[in-house]
Structures are given as C-alpha cells and as structure tokens.
C-alpha cells in the first residue's frame, strides 16, 4: 500500500496521480519530508492548496490522515490527550465504599480512561500516518511551545502512565496563513515551504485536471482572467479552489467563451466581497468588453 518515493520526481508524479499537481518546490519539500522525517511548515495565502497537499500526500503514501484543526484557545487537553473524567467519576462512584483509594487510583488512570486527541493518536498509531496541524498561527505561543517536544522527539509524557513514543515516523505538515509570526524555535524544527498562487500554465493544468470537460479555450481564458483579478488589490483574491469552482460553474452553464456578460453573471463565484466586486467589475469587466470589441468573434 504505502508508496516509498525515491526522488522528488516520484513524489510529483505520485501526487499528480491522486489529483494534486505540485509545483517543483512542493514536490521536493514533500520528498525531503518523507526522507528526513522533519515536519514541514507550509505557508501561503488562503486557498492555494496547503491543506489539500496534506490530504494528497496521505492518499499518495497510503497513510491515514490525522488532522488537528487549530483555533484560538486550543489547549493540550484537546490536542494531546485528556482523562475521561466523567468515566473516572462514574468508576469512583460505582466502586464499593470499602475499596481502598490506592486500588481505585490504580484503576482510574489506565488507558481505558484516556481520550486520545489528534497528536496522541498520531504518535501512538501502529501504522505510519500523515499528521496535519492546520492553521497553527491561530493558536497561542504556549501551545506552540508544547508542540516542540512532540515535533522533535515524537513522544508525549503522561505523568500517570509514562512516556508514549512513536513506533513509526509520521509525516507532519503544519500550515499557517501568516496571521502571526511563528516562533523561531518552531521554525527551526521545520522545513519551510511557501506556496503561492501558481503560474498560468500550472493553474491551467490544475483546472483541466478538475474540470476535464471544459473547453480548452475557455480554460485558458479562465486562468488568464483569474490571474488578472489576482493582480488587483482585493480583500480576498480568488484561490485555486475558486478557479476550479468557476470552471465547473462555466461547464454547467455551457459557456463557450468568457465575455463581459458571462463574467458579470458568474463573477460571484470567484469574488466574495462587495467592495471587491465593484473593483473587479470596473477593471476586469471593462477589459473583457474591450477585447471582445477588438476581435469580433
């Protein structure tokens, strides 16, 4: 089941076979991550496929994906492990009153009462996994510090049980939207990958992969327009996912070309802010109208 890549080109073809077209540097870093067993910190604007990369890697390597979605206020109990205190309480209450404390204590801190959270399950897993720690920038620095032990030694200490260390080496991806600077200590332990919006040809290939029935000329036009839209200073530039959505929408509508009218109707698929829509309609809409006038079909 598990693929074992021997070069970055292997990773590139492998990822492409599961529906993710990586850029050269993405493939290389993914390859290095599997080889060196170092976590990868993936940064980039929203919607360039950071999370998708982890999913694709798990499909390609044939490993289970364990995902830890970070948010403000995430703590160890929700990331590492937690004692199932309800069950523990029940256990204590169910105990006959003459049982000594010692015996009860031995009982209630067993694995049976442990709730494994994502990091714990990734480390304790028998099979190698892909661990995705999503949007690490949303957590606070204390949590990041806690991650350091997990990421460098792949082990967790539980005071009552002892140490749990990993038997297999997980591939770890951390994603960040850059909403804050991560600590140096964390960065030091990771390989760094910056994912940016793809170039025209690359995006065209991605769109074609996900909407294979779309007319060649329309697809070409689509990525050009999306590229144009991204050049504008928008609140939220369209992501790759949105180009794909747009391609599918155009396919459904049976559009033969992207002219000003089609664009205005379907623009809401790629632009999602009112002020942005005004800007886009003004700049790109006009440009489209011009080109249509210049070359009457």
């Amino acid at each position, binding site marked *: 089941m598990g693929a074992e890549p021997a070069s970055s080109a292997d990773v590139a073809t492998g990822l492409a076979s599961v529906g993710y077209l990586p850029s050269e*540097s993405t493939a*290389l870093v993914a390859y290095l991550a599997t080889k060196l067993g170092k976590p990868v910190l993936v940064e980039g604007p929203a919607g360039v496929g950071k999370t998708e990369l982890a999913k694709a890697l798990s499909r390609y390597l044939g490993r289970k994906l364990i995902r830890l979605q970070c948010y403000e206020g995430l703590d160890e109990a929700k990331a590492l492990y937690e004692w199932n205190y309800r069950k523990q309480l029940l256990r204590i209450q169910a105990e006959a009153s003459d049982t000594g404390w010692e015996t009860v204590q031995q009982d209630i801190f067993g694995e049976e009462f442990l709730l494994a959270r994502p990091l714990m399950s990734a480390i304790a897993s028998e099979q190698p996994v892909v661990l995705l720690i999503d949007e690490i920038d949303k957590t606070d620095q204390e949590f990041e510090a806690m991650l350091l032990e997990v990421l460098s030694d792949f082990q967790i200490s539980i005071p009552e049980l002892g140490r749990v260390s990993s038997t297999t080496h997980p591939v770890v991806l951390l994603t960040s939207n850059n909403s804050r600077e991560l600590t140096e200590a964390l960065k*030091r332990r990771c390989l*760094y990958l910056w994912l940016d919006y793809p170039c025209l040809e690359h995006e065209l290939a991605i769109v074609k992969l996900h909407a294979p029935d779309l007319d060649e000329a329309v697809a070409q036009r689509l990525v050009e327009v999306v590229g144009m839209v991204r050049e504008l*200073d928008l609140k939220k530039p369209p992501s790759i996912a949105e180009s794909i959505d747009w391609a599918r929408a155009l396919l459904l509508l049976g559009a033969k070309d992207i002219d000003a009218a089609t664009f205005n109707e379907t623009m809401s698929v790629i632009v999602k802010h009112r002020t942005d829509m005004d800007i886009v309609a003004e700049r790109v809409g006009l440009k489209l109208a011009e080109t249509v006038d210049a070359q009457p079909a």
Partner: protein
Amino acid sequence: MPSPPEGLAAQLLSFAEQLREEGVAIGTSELLDAFAVLREVEWTYQGEFREALAATLAKSQDDRRIFELLFDRFFFRAVEMAAVREGVERPGDDTGDLSELSETELDALRMQIAQALRDGAEGAMRDLARLAIATFGQQEQGSGVIGVDVQRIRRALGLRAEPQPELPPDDPRRDGVPRDALRRFEQMMRRELERRQVQRSGKLPPSRPLGELDRALPSGPLQDLAAVHRVVTQLRRRLATQGRQNRGYRRHAHVDVRRTMRASLQTGGVPVELRYRPRRPKRPEIYVLCDVSTSVTSASVFFLSVLHALHDSFRKMRSFVFIERISEVTDVFAHERDFRAVSERISSDAGVADISGYTDYGRVWMELLELIGDDLHPRATVIVLGDARTNGRDPRADLFGQVASQAGRTFWLNPEPQLYWNYGDSVIAAYERYCNAFECWTVAQLEEFVKALTRPVVSAAG
C-alpha cells in the same frame, strides 16, 4: 574580502554567514539540516539545490526574498572568484566587436530581441543579451556604472513596456514588450556586464548589504512603494504575534467548569481548586489626527496606512487629517488600500488647507473638540502626528489639554528628530505636558510605537 575556503561545505558555510549578516537567523541546526537535505537531492541541478537550501535556511517570506537575492549573487560571485583565481578566460567572449554592423542588421537584431522577449524564451534571451552588449555596450563607451549601461542599451534597443503605436504593425515592440520579460532581460544584461567587469579588473566588486528596515520613513510620497508595503506587512505580522503574548490571564471572572472538574480529580472529585476562563482583552478605541501639511505629509499618510492595515486590533478607529482645519478620512482608508491612491485622495478631496496652507493648531483643537468631544472617554486613545510647528499662531495648549483629559491616553508623534524640537516655531513643549511625545522618523521607531499602542489596555488611566 578574504578568499573563502574551497569545497562545497565551506561555500555553504560562507553563504550562511552572508545570510546571517543580512539578518536571516540561521542556527547550527539549520545548517545541519541543509547538509542532510543535500544528501537527498541532486545538488548538481540548480533548481533542486536552490529549493532544498531555501526550505532549510529561509523560514519566512522575507527571509526567502533575501535568500533569492543573495543566492544569485553569492554563487555567481563564487564562480567568478574561482575563475579569477584559476585565471580561466570564459569562452564565448569572442563575439568580437560588433559595432561595425550596418543599420539594417542592427534593426534585425532589435527585432529578434523583442521577439524573444515576447515569447519569453529564456535561452535565446541570454544569448541575445550577450550579443546586445557586444553590439551596443563597448567598453570604451561604458559609463562604468552597470545600471546606467543597462538602461542605455535598453534604450538603444528601443525596448519599452508601453505600447509604441508609431512603429510598423509587424514590429513585435508595437504593443510593448511584457514587463517581466523586460526585467529578466535587464537582469541578464546586468549579470553579463558584471561578469565582464570582474574579468576586466580581475577582482570582485565589494558586496553591499541589503538592509532596508532601518531606513528613514519615506520622505517623498511615492518613494519606493514596494518598500512601504513590505514594512506594513512585516509590522502587521510582528504586531499580531506580540499582541497574543499580552492577552488574557490577568484577572479572571468566570469559572471554567470543565477544567475545574478535571482538576478536582486530584482531590477525589471534590472541586477544591477553581479554574477560571481567561478574560478576553479589550481592544482600544483610537482617534488619529495627522498633520498633512507638506513638511510631514508622507510620514502621516504612511502612519495612517500602517494603522489602517492593523484596524482589526482596534475596536474602533477614526482618522482625521488637518492643516488649517480638520477633515475625517476614515472612509478613504476603508476603500483604498493603495498607498499612492490614498495620498492622492487625501490631497485632492480632504479640503483641509483653507487660505494660507499653514498649520493652525489652535483651530484644529477647537474643531476636534466639536467633532469628537462627546465621544471621548477614558478608554479612548488619541494620537497626534505632527511637527508642532504653529507658524507663529497661538498653540491653544489649553484646548489640547482638554482633549487629553477626556481621553484615556494621548500620544504625540513627532516626525522630526528630537534635536529640532522647540527650535524655531516648534511648540512641542507646550503640548508635551499633556501627552507622551515620541520621536518618530524611522520605521523602527514607528514600529516601537505601534507595538506600545496595540498592547491591550490593562487598566484605564485617569
């Protein structure tokens, strides 16, 4: 420059040393990683070598930018250094003197270059760059300054990014050459000229540091917009990090039941120790007042852009600009995010200079009190950016004192070095009694201030 030790490992080390000099934090562990990585990739292939190094050494977008700049320079220099040491003459310089070409041949060359640029053919462009230099850039005509020579050759080739409708329709330059291709071509010419210079003089030109952040605030409104944007994004990220550190955990109010229960297991299910929810911090409310008279206008607009880029850290933010009277510009920033557009709109629409065009602080305070006097409360922060030069008019520090007493915190940012304060018509001392005055004429100082500002209010100052 001492000659670097030989061998790849040594080269890598001195490359890392250069990166460190530019402020990229590279520790031993990064270097070890870099070496580990190089065992896994084919380092004879430039693309992979570069990406692999970047993944281990450059850990942020800024670092990556510096990495790119240095990588090219360093390895280019390393190759040239070796060539100089070994006394190797590069073949391919025997294109000879082509200045004898006839005008039609030159035209053909121009055409060919423009076509290559339009097609974006990398290899062809490199060869043509060499040819162009041989044709148009003979050494005796060269100015010795590479940048100047590059531009001279570009003009001689008639390459422009803008369309040139006067040219015949079959000329590839007519619609303008693509901007990136042109930039790449200039880069290649620069590289080639540099190489020739090295070969001619037999030694490397001194390397210059790239440092950028410690520069003074932009003084011309349109000066280096890219740098401004970079600083803003950088600031933004740093502030976001810093904000987090100071949040919460100060005074607690609500009991966190879940955590209390968990803690109670230590005591056999009896909740002896209470656990609390962290308190969410209060975000400050901000009123910014910026002088936009000619002397300080760019510092003001820059400062406003920074604050607006950070608007999510504040609960409410209103901004005003003033010269003789004041005008609210909050909306301008809400709609425009381009630094240039903002400064244009402020100068055209705000209508703040009435008669003389000189700052009138007295009138400004009066109007400010009218506008926001009722909204001010002890949790509000008022920030004034200006040089406090009254042009001989009455400073009306009493009115300013009134503003300051109604607001919780009042800051004054002076874009003049402290040395000039209170000289001439500067009356900062009169205002300083009511507020904290800061010197703010470099990006670093501004950053310090914004940091202090975004720190959450702990207790309301009277």
